[in-house]
């Protein structure tokens, strides 16, 4: 192949974190103007490689060479990468919550005259970007008022605002619904027509298949290989990633559904910021013992608000009734919910799921720490460690030691820690809000199997997910929401994605 | 009032100088409440100088107005093999336990300027703090026998401020009872800060529509702030105001007629006397006490000096004569032709 085709070559990149090799002699070549997919298990080193390329880990903190546009790149900081024309959307949301949408989009590149910001221009350009993404929000609203999905779109807008020749997207769609993904893809195709190169990282292989031209697969910090997308199938990618075949992604298993355990009646939730606005409007549903109930809907449909209000963690006011095993209950905070046997994996793992500076162990046992109390009132650390090790094994969490701070884990592995925390609590009802965000196919499969084991043992599950295949592949029953209202309920037999989509966008 | 003792005590000190031909160097520890106040710097300089003449070394510490720090520092001094510990207590009660500790280590303790309470103190050299308050009030009542009085006291957490207040009240209360004077306000300036005193005085003038005839002010750093506030109302010089410590800036204000008086504690005399007593204690000689003061436990052998009220008239005879400040310094802002002849 002609060398001139390549806009980027990363050669023999090696990077370790105090003894742990995250990248081991990695090579990546990207052609000018292509959309290049990067796949690999959780912890394979994808994000680390991209952080090297965007100057987060500056020249000298890794070994190897980066050739970009024919010249060797020695990046000292992020600014250098931006100056060279490289832009990135990080896997972990990196927005300043107190600042407005438009300020976040232009942070670091504020339109200004002599250091004085031209707010009107900023507003105007933000509006254009948001329109492109079909996101109808006020550019002056602080980011903290947005849902996770919307925040991810803002992050995308931020990347688009920079005029880059190489755009890196690290898990840009983990909280997006299919409709939004389609919008993003159209934009990427437009960019491609304008000669912009993209590197696209995702665990949603169908997306990767749809949008990319070539794919490189990484495993355990090493490059496995690159191939044109058209020559690959999903299962071939999986095989390269995981090292083995994985034919059925959804291990449907028979399980007993028992009597009704939870009933939610006429439930409404009001916005925590403006108390007159209803986000969830008069929703009712039931949940049976050993049942998996899926909740589908578009971004902003109010699914998160619904489930987090039930769990007692949403700050806004709510109305309606909840019956647990026939008894009316009133949950005011997560503490009480957990006492009733209801646990929840929140959608925002960084903000609500994890305590970044604490270790994997501390995080995992935070909810059930009481159960390790011994006679002296102290924590039986060894008993704790046994459990922690068990879950690390079970969920295949890639971590060198359980006392490592969770902030050092790869995105997918962090998500697994949040899952483990809630499993350790042994709930009767487990609420999962986007449970497999950023988790690789192999691990997803394991998690699904685990979910089946849970329901077989009589635990009930409510699962909010933006991945329709996941909803359809797992749920026994599906509730669909649209603009805060329940628009439909399907027993999962012969349900198609189209039927759910139709319902989610408000049609019948 | 001038100080009748002064010339006499000067003679005494020169005598002691002659008798102190000594080979072995004596170590004296000196613990100051604080050195952030102008006067204490003078005390230190005179004391050290005199001790040197007597053949003693002085280790100086300053406790930043904190009893606990002072206690620690005294411990540290004792640990260094001193013979005598001289203390200007931040709080005469709170420093008492150090006396016993010192005695255990064979160290004598001299309370300097402020008494140490409830302890077997070996000697006390001082001016009487209540007396200071009395002098302030006496001077001001003499100038303004009738009228509205405002009391600007020191830091509310400083034990000495309380003593000054007591002294003032001793003089003022009878006049209040007689109806001659009316106390229209009493405020305490946190940390003796000039700025706080300034704000307090501003507010007092506002609250009383400037109808204040006299201010009994506890010390010079607060008087400085109060006078600024008076000046703003063109009242400086019209309202009598007291002070204490004979700080240079305040002496200047006195000769300019803006401050009525300050209480001058002839520091040189006190420091020189202090050094003499300290050395005598070290050698086990007689300290020439001129009185005894009860501290709640014992009658402490004391050398008591008299604080002097200084105003425009006796400035030259006291402060300047003592060399505490020079004539040039004090009269700097006064036209040369109005300078006193010396």
């Amino acid at each position, binding site marked *: 192949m002609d060398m001139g085709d390549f806009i980027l070559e990363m050669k023999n990149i090696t990077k370790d974190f105090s003894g742990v090799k995250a990248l081991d002699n990695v090579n990546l070549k990207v052609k000018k103007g292509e959309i290049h997919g990067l796949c690999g298990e959780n912890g394979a080193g994808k994000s680390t490689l991209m952080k090297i390329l965007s100057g987060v880990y500056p020249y000298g903190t890794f070994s190897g060479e980066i050739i970009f546009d024919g010249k060797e790149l020695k990046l000292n900081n992020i600014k250098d990468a931006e100056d060279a024309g490289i832009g990135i959307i990080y896997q972990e949301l*990196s927005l300043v919550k107190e600042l407005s949408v438009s300020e976040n989009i232009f942070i670091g590149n*504020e339109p200004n005259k002599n250091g*004085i910001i031209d707010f009107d221009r900023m507003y105007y350009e933000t509006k254009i970007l948001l329109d492109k993404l079909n996101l*109808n929000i006020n550019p002056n609203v602080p980011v903290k008022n947005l849902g996770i999905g919307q925040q991810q779109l803002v992050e995308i807008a931020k990347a688009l605002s920079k005029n880059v020749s190489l755009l890196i997207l690290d898990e840009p769609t983990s909280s997006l619904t299919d409709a939004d993904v389609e919008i993003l893809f159209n934009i990427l195709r437009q960019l491609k027509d304008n000669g912009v190169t993209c590197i696209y990282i995702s665990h949603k292989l169908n997306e990767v298949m749809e949008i990319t031209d070539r794919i490189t697969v990484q495993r355990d910090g090493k490059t496995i290989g690159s191939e044109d997308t058209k020559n690959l199938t999903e299962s071939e990618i999986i095989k390269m990633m995981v090292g083995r075949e994985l034919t059925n992604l959804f291990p449907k298993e028979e399980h007993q559904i028992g009597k009704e355990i939870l009933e939610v009646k006429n439930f409404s939730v009001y916005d925590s*910021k403006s108390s007159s606005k209803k986000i969830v409007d008069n929703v009712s549903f039931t949940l049976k013992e050993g049942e998996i109930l899926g909740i589908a809907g578009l971004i902003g449909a109010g699914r998160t608000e619904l489930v987090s209000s039930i769990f007692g963690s949403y700050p806004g006011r709510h109305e309606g009734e909840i019956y647990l095993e026939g008894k009316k209950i009133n949950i005011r905070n997560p503490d009480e919910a957990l006492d009733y046997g209801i646990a929840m994996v929140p959608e925002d793992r960084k903000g609500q799921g994890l305590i970044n500076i604490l270790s994997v162990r501390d995080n995992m046992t935070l909810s059930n720490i009481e159960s390790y109390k011994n006679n002296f009132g102290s924590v039986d650390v060894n008993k704790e460690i046994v459990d922690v090790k068990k879950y690390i094994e079970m969920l295949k969490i890639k971590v060198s030691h359980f006392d490592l701070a969770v902030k050092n884990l790869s995105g997918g592995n962090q998500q697994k820690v949040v899952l483990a925390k809630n499993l350790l609590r042994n709930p009767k009802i487990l609420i999962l809000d986007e449970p497999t965000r950023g988790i690789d196919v192999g691990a997803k499969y394991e998690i699904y199997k685990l979910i089946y084991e849970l329901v077989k043992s009589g635990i009930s599950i409510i699962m909010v997910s933006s991945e329709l295949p996941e909803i359809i592949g797992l749920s026994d029953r599906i509730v669909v929401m649209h603009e805060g209202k329940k628009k439909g309920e399907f027993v999962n037999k012969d349900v198609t994605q189209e039927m759910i989509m139709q319902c989610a966008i408000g049609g019948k | 009032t001038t100080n009748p003792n002064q010339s006499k005590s000067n003679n005494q000190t020169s005598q002691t100088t002659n008798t102190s031909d000594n080979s072995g160097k004596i170590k004296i520890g000196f613990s100051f409440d604080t050195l952030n106040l102008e006067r204490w710097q003078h005390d230190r300089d005179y004391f050290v100088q005199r001790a040197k003449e007597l053949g003693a070394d002085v280790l100086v510490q300053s406790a930043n107005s904190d009893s606990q720090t002072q206690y620690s520092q005294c411990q540290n001094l004792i640990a260094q093999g001193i013979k005598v510990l001289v203390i200007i207590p931040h709080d005469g009660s709170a420093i008492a336990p150090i006396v016993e500790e010192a005695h255990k280590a064979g160290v004598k303790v001299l309370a300097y300027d402020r008494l140490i309470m409830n302890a077997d103190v070996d000697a006390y050299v001082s001016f009487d703090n209540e007396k200071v308050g009395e002098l302030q009030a006496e001077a001001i009542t003499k100038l303004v026998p009738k009228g509205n009085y405002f009391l600007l006291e020191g830091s509310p957490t400083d034990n000495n401020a309380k003593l000054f207040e007591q002294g003032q009240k001793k003089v003022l209360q009878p006049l209040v009872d007689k109806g001659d004077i009316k106390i229209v306000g009493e405020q305490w300036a946190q940390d003796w*800060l*000039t700025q706080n005193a300034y704000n307090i005085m501003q507010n007092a003038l506002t609250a009383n529509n400037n109808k204040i005839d006299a201010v009994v002010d506890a010390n010079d750093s607060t008087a400085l702030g109060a006078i600024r506030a008076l000046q703003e109302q063109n009242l400086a010089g019209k309202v009598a105001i007291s002070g204490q410590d004979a*700080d240079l800036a305040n002496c200047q204000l006195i000769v300019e007629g803006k401050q009525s008086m300050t209480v001058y504690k002839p520091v040189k005399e006190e420091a020189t006397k202090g050094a003499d007593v300290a050395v005598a204690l070290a050698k086990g000689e007689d300290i020439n006490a001129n009185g005894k003061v009860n501290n709640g436990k014992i009658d402490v052998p004391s050398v008591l000096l008299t604080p002097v009220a200084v105003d425009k008239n006796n400035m030259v005879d006291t402060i300047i004569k003592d060399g505490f400040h020079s004539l040039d310094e004090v009269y700097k802002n006064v036209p040369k032709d109005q300078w006193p002849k010396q």
Partner: protein
Amino acid sequence: MVNSKGFKENNVSINKKFSFNLKLYTMIIALVGIWIIFAIATKGDFLTSRNMSNLFRQMVSTAVLAIGMVFVIIAGQIDLSVGSLLGLTGGIAAIANVWFHINGILSIIIALAIGLILGTWNGWWVAYKNVPSFIVTLAGMLVFRGILIGITNGYTIAPLSSDFQFIGQAYLTPVSGYLLGIIVLLVGAYTIYSQRKSKIKYGLEVSPFYLDIAKIILMIVLIGLFVFTLNSYNGIPFSVLILAILVAIFTYIASKTVFGRRVYALGGNIEAAKLSGINVKKITLILFAINGLLAAVSGVVLTSTLNAGSTSAGQNAEMDAIASCVIGGASLMGGVGSVIGAIIGALVMASINNGMSLLNSAPFWQYVVKGLILLLAVYVDVASKNKE
């Protein structure tokens, strides 16, 4: 659909403006409450133009410190050295002026330069050596106070030359006061007008005309009242004018400039700020440098007001400054705060001090009531925000 969405957005934008203002308004309401209580308790003395003039002058040195401090706090840092720095720079200015007979202006410039340098020293350790700002500035607090004690040798340095005294003691003549008021009004009106124009240029929705008019009327009333009150005593104090100018400049910096917004960004989420390519170190350095400069301004004003430099000047002033910021809504966790808030905070504190001292209460009451008012004022603020 588009219509309904457009409508939604409008709603939000009005909502947002309202809630933004409310945040400051509740503290202003608490302030007004305090004023009313003191006005009643002092039988009106508190609200005389003379006392208002005093009050504003009494708040200047804390308020100037608070302006710098609020930036540092927004950035998630703290500066404990400003009290000592205030004392040191004030002392240096006084020494230059009194002992070395350097004229007032030059003495002040020297003091400001030293403030800037020592602030930069603080910032350098924090930004480039990663030492926690608490430690760096605690060290600064000790070192600067030590130097002050060393150079003054414990003496109070006074009196200053008249060109130095000017800053803290002079007043604007009534006429120039009104003139100034009119200029401010004109600038304000012009800003509103040009904002309108720029909005139209980008095809953005402009606020209804009557709202702009209302704004201008409000401005006229407030500025008029301010100037009138101060003029009916001695005129606008020069030191208050300096404060006002600083407030204007730094409010502008905080809300309108690239630098200002980046400070909020790095305080709100330092990781995100770094990942956005912001030079966090440089900004941190500049913040502390500015804070040093403002401490020097405060030192100069205080020295000039008291007509003396002393070793103990500015003791504990850092706590007052920090407290002002927090009362005014700043969070010590960073990312939140405003210059106006800090000024209102300083005014709340000065008002409590002034009122209690007018009431001539005993130290016991002063401490207790001060503490309780402070707690209640902030509680009112917090509670009303929560309800909303």
